[in-house]
């Protein structure tokens, strides 16, 4: 059985990690492979409600995510982890633990993130109900060299998902679909152009 890979989505809350993970999961499944999303917020709520946002708690949360991802990978399931994971050394540790590991940076301006999560997390921050939020009162350290960076504040989600899938294809982790890029009309045009230039 081929070992699965881990796609690690990192970015501010509201940057589109979960949305993209969902789109990519669909594509992976369509291509006949197995995939499972590990949503950081969901895992905190369901499995780790006791954890806060201290450095030690953040590290433990990530370690638990990595453990579950590894378990999935060992059983041929590709893991799509969507977690803010704000610190570089934390993500570096995940890269050390999981292989293949593909880091996806969902790059999105804080303003757009706030608009997307206006009724949720960022409202709580403004009301003082929660602290230690990455990008507000806790640092978010963007990746220096993620395998994929997507600008979710500038691109459509499908465009970002296509970039991620393209990288998986390049790395040989997902079979690509042979593209018959030409319609009959396009083929006729191609034939004409190549004939004009003496190639046919």
């Amino acid at each position: 059985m081929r070992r699965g890979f881990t796609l690690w989505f990192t970015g501010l809350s509201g940057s589109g990690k979960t949305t993209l993970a969902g789109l990519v999961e669909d594509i992976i499944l369509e291509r006949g492979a197995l995939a499972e999303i590990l949503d950081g917020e969901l895992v905190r709520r369901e499995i780790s409600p006791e954890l806060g946002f201290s450095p030690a708690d953040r590290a433990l949360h990530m370690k638990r995510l990595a453990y579950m991802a590894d378990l999935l990978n060992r059983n041929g399931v590709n893991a799509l982890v969507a977690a803010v994971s704000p610190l570089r050394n934390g993500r570096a540790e995940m890269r050390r633990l999981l292989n293949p590991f593909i880091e996806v940076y969902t790059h999105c301006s804080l303003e757009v993130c706030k608009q997307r999560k206006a009724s949720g997390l960022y409202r709580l921050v403004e009301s003082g109900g929660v602290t230690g939020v990455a990008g507000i009162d806790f640092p978010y350290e963007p990746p220096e060299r993620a395998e994929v960076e997507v600008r979710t504040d500038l691109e459509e989600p499908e465009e970002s998902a296509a970039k991620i899938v393209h990288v998986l294809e390049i790395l040989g982790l997902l079979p690509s679909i042979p593209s018959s890029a030409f319609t009959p009309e396009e083929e006729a045009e191609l034939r004409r152009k190549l004939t004009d230039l003496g190639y046919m």
Partner: protein
Amino acid sequence: MKSRIALVGLDGVPIHLLQTMVDNGVMPNLSRWLRSRPMRPLSSSTPPVSSVAWASLYTGKNPGEHGIFGFHDIDAATFRSYFTNLSHVRAHTLWDIAGLRGLRSLIFNVPQTYPAKPIQGTMISGFVAPDLKKAVQPLRLLDYLADRGYRTDPETGNAVRNPEAFMQDLFDVLRVRGEVLLRLMAKEPWDFMMAVITETDRLHHFLWNAGDDPAHLLHEEFFDFYSKLDVLLGQLLARLQPIASTILLSDHGFGTLKKEFYLNRWLEENRYLELKYPGAVQVEDVADASRAFALDPSRIYLRVKGKFPLGPVEPGRRYEELRDEIAGRLSLLKDPETGDAVVREALKKEELYDGPLLDAAPDLIVRTNEGYDPKGAFHRKTLFGHSGLTGMHTADDAFIAMDEDWGEPVPKNVEEVGALLGQKLLSLRSR
């Protein structure tokens, strides 16, 4: 090395022509740039056709590894032909390597990059790109390109009948090409840029004789084209100089086309090829009894049993004997008008290529002598002829000029250029 890398391509420009333009004062901007960056000859791919040459360059590999042997190819198992595109490239590209290192690429009008892929950066596909909507990534640039009237290629259908209109169209396409490239360079983030001007190749295919012949109607316009190209190059290279370690090159050269040589007609006359019916025009009309056929521009395939459906050629010794026989007979072919030898050599695939896709390669690749342009058309009734084109691709007189910080040695062929770029991308840091 600077913090960015740029490659600017002039499709189909031979070193001697560019030197002439520089020496005669037609290209003062380029002349200044070349003062500290001497031009050297560069060899193209085999065959020296843009789809193969650029794929070899942007993968740093030979066709036995990247899988592109021409604009048109054949699926041996089904005997169906198809037009090659970027999806058929089987090796990592330079922009793939860049993207995996967190570097963004601007890939502009590079031939054999259609359909455009969702890369880290920007991709505007080059020839052949029949649908602009599939030639642009990210899609948000489509409206801008459409508004500018951007086209991948000038209209070539009337180039022979109406060369004046064709020349005007070349100027128009070049102007918009330059404007769009300069804007994208300024507005889209990039660490690695690869941009190609293809109008030079089109000019040379149809109007090579205009450059040669002072009495040609468009002789002045030929040089005016290069003057306008020089203005664009001046702007481009000036903007690149402070920020990017730059390479300027061409993918193949050009020379005078004396006669077209129709390979399939030769195979037919020598009983290697049968067509299903008179007037057949496509490879699918090759009869089952045929032992060989040709695809553009110079590729000969043997219909080997087990590889092609109903292929009559036994693999092993019979295959080798047939290859040697065809190569030997081709080498004896003389131009009936001049007595000149037409074919310089017919090379076996394993002499030229290596890699996992060697089996898909043509069995023989024909190199012709100067002026004889090999063609893969099926409908020709004579061995030699003319279709209105006046220039033909040449293999060993492309050019390369590089910023000093690239160091030595200078690559000798397009594949080595790609390998060098790939190596430098591995050490580039994202900004």
